[in-house]
């Protein structure tokens, strides 16, 4: 077995076993880490593998979260079915957003997506939709219990549920990336003109990439709503979009497993920064982030690649 496979198995084992040894609160935090990892995977598919910037993925996260909340709160649908519905709705929204985005490149696309991120809380607060979204008050939902009377706490059950969904989505992403479509996406990232002249339908793939990416992040949002049990416009400000981007870069752009590292960064580093200094927690966070980028300019993925390359050369 290659070192990569061994390390993946170790990580997997750790993820599966740890809820039994840790407190409910830590399991809750790890659950959030997995959720952000799924969201980052989605962003990675779009930015890392297809070369389209997005500073607005928080919007898709929000759409997924509200879909789940509304379905559970107003239509009493079980939490399990909210995920595929959220996924489909987000896929469609992502695809629709991707269409006009075709004309935008680089910094302009970044701006358009940033505009989306900033507009999201306003749209959620809109009095027009208040009947469904609960307006500024948000929606409170109930946490599900483990099914079939399994001897798991709510926190543990949701953790395993998230883990299962995450692994499934990861497997799907790996397959997508190594398939023909994946290669087409990457070709578009590396050289859109060459890709087009090779017969790749650039417009279609770019829009599809947006759709798939939104699907992933939307499902993460739905999971997030279930775990936190609450959605409100203030939960989905542009800060979320920025955090996802930071998580993506820290984990490694274009390296799928990096999503876990990105997710861990989002959940734990702000807390560490706060512990170092409450008054200057933002500054500490910024300093830690800059140091991290110095040490690994291409993220954890880049670092691991450099290290393994060097080891192979020995």
């Amino acid at each position, binding site marked *: 077995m290659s070192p990569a496979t061994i390390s993946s198995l170790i990580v997997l084992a750790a993820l599966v076993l740890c809820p039994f040894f840790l407190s409910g609160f830590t399991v809750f935090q790890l659950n959030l880490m997995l959720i952000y990892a799924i969201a980052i995977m989605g962003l990675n598919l779009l*930015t890392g593998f297809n070369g389209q*910037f997005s500073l607005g993925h928080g919007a898709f996260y929000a759409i997924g979260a509200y879909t789940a909340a509304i379905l559970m709160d107003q239509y009493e649908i079980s939490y399990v079915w909210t995920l595929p519905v959220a996924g489909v709705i987000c896929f469609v929204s992502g695809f629709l957003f991707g269409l*006009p985005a075709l*004309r*935008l*490149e680089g*910094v*302009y696309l*970044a*701006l*358009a997506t*940033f*505009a989306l991120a*900033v*507009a999201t809380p*306003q*749209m959620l*607060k*809109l*009095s*027009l939709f208040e009947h469904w979204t609960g307006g500024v008050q948000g929606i409170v939902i109930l946490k599900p219990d483990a099914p079939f009377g399994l001897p798991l706490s709510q926190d543990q059950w949701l953790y395993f549920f998230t883990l299962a969904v995450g692994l499934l989505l990861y497997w799907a992403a790996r397959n997508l990336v190594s398939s023909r479509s994946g290669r087409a996406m990457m070709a578009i990232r590396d050289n859109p*003109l060459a890709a087009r002249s090779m017969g790749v339908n650039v417009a279609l793939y770019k829009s599809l990439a947006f759709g798939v990416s939104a699907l992933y992040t939307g499902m993460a949002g739905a999971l997030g709503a279930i775990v936190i049990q609450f959605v409100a416009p203030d939960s989905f400000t542009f800060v979320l979009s*920025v955090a996802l*981007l*930071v998580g*993506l*870069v*820290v984990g490694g*752009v274009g390296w799928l497993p990096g999503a876990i590292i990105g997710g861990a960064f989002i959940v734990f580093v702000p807390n560490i920064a706060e512990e170092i200094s409450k*008054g*200057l*927690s*933002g*500054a*500490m*966070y*910024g*300093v830690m*982030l*800059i140091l991290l*980028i*110095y040490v690994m*300019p*291409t*993220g954890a993925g880049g670092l691991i690649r450099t290290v393994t390359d060097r080891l192979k050369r020995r």
Partner: protein
Amino acid sequence: METFIQQVLAGIATGGIYACMALAVVMIYQAIHHLNFAQGEMAMFSTFIAWQLLQWGVPYWLAFGLTIVISLIGGFVLERTVFKPIENAPVLSHIVVFIALFAIFNSLAGFIWDFTIKPFPSPFGNAALFGEGLIGAHQAGMIVITLVVLLLLFAFFRYTRIGLAMRAAAANPESARLVGIRVGTMTGLGWGMAAAVGSVAGILIAPMVFLEPNMMLSILLYGFAGAVLGGLTSPGGAVLGGFTVGVVENLAGTYIPVVGAELKLPIALFLIVAVLVFKPSGLFGHRVVQRV
């Protein structure tokens, strides 16, 4: 009709704020071909420095000048120290460092000067011009200064050697190096100038919105919008874009029924995006031709 005129004038007044900021944004874009998300926070920080100088009894115009100089040097030093180690890192890593700087400046300002609002004096006074407060003296002064800065920048880039060198360094660093331009220094200088323009923006804006660490965030966004609308390669266009955003936002808020008031910002942004879809380099920018 009177409301319409008042809203347009108010839009021009707030648009002046956005135009100021848009200028700083374009300034840095010219220098590094990136958008600096920390720009707003740097401007805010400079404004706090100006405020502190005023608190210590320094006369207004001296504090103004000192702040510009401090910001110029500060921006230059910041670029040379923070960005040198990651010169060759991918774009996204740079963006993340911008985000980190944003967090640092915001947190530092809040820590040193706390988060309560502080009044900031205006050199033009608060009187209304033309009576009935159609446009205040300060707003008019702000627009004038913005236009002056715009002209200075235009002249700098067009007619000076350093300006030309800076544009070259940003457009094609390798070729610029080959003709003997010190790209690193140019980039640092670009940052310094952007910080200086930002500080002017901050000092002009603070009297209208009150000084506090979070004052620049939305203004930066509107500044981006204005810059993009006008075209990132055109300082004049950016200024015009800023005014346009201000006016459009106010008119949308007033005349679009039901949702207008609640969706002012998203509507303004939506319009920007719509413009971009049809004219990707902005209203006044020139098209970037890609060689195959």
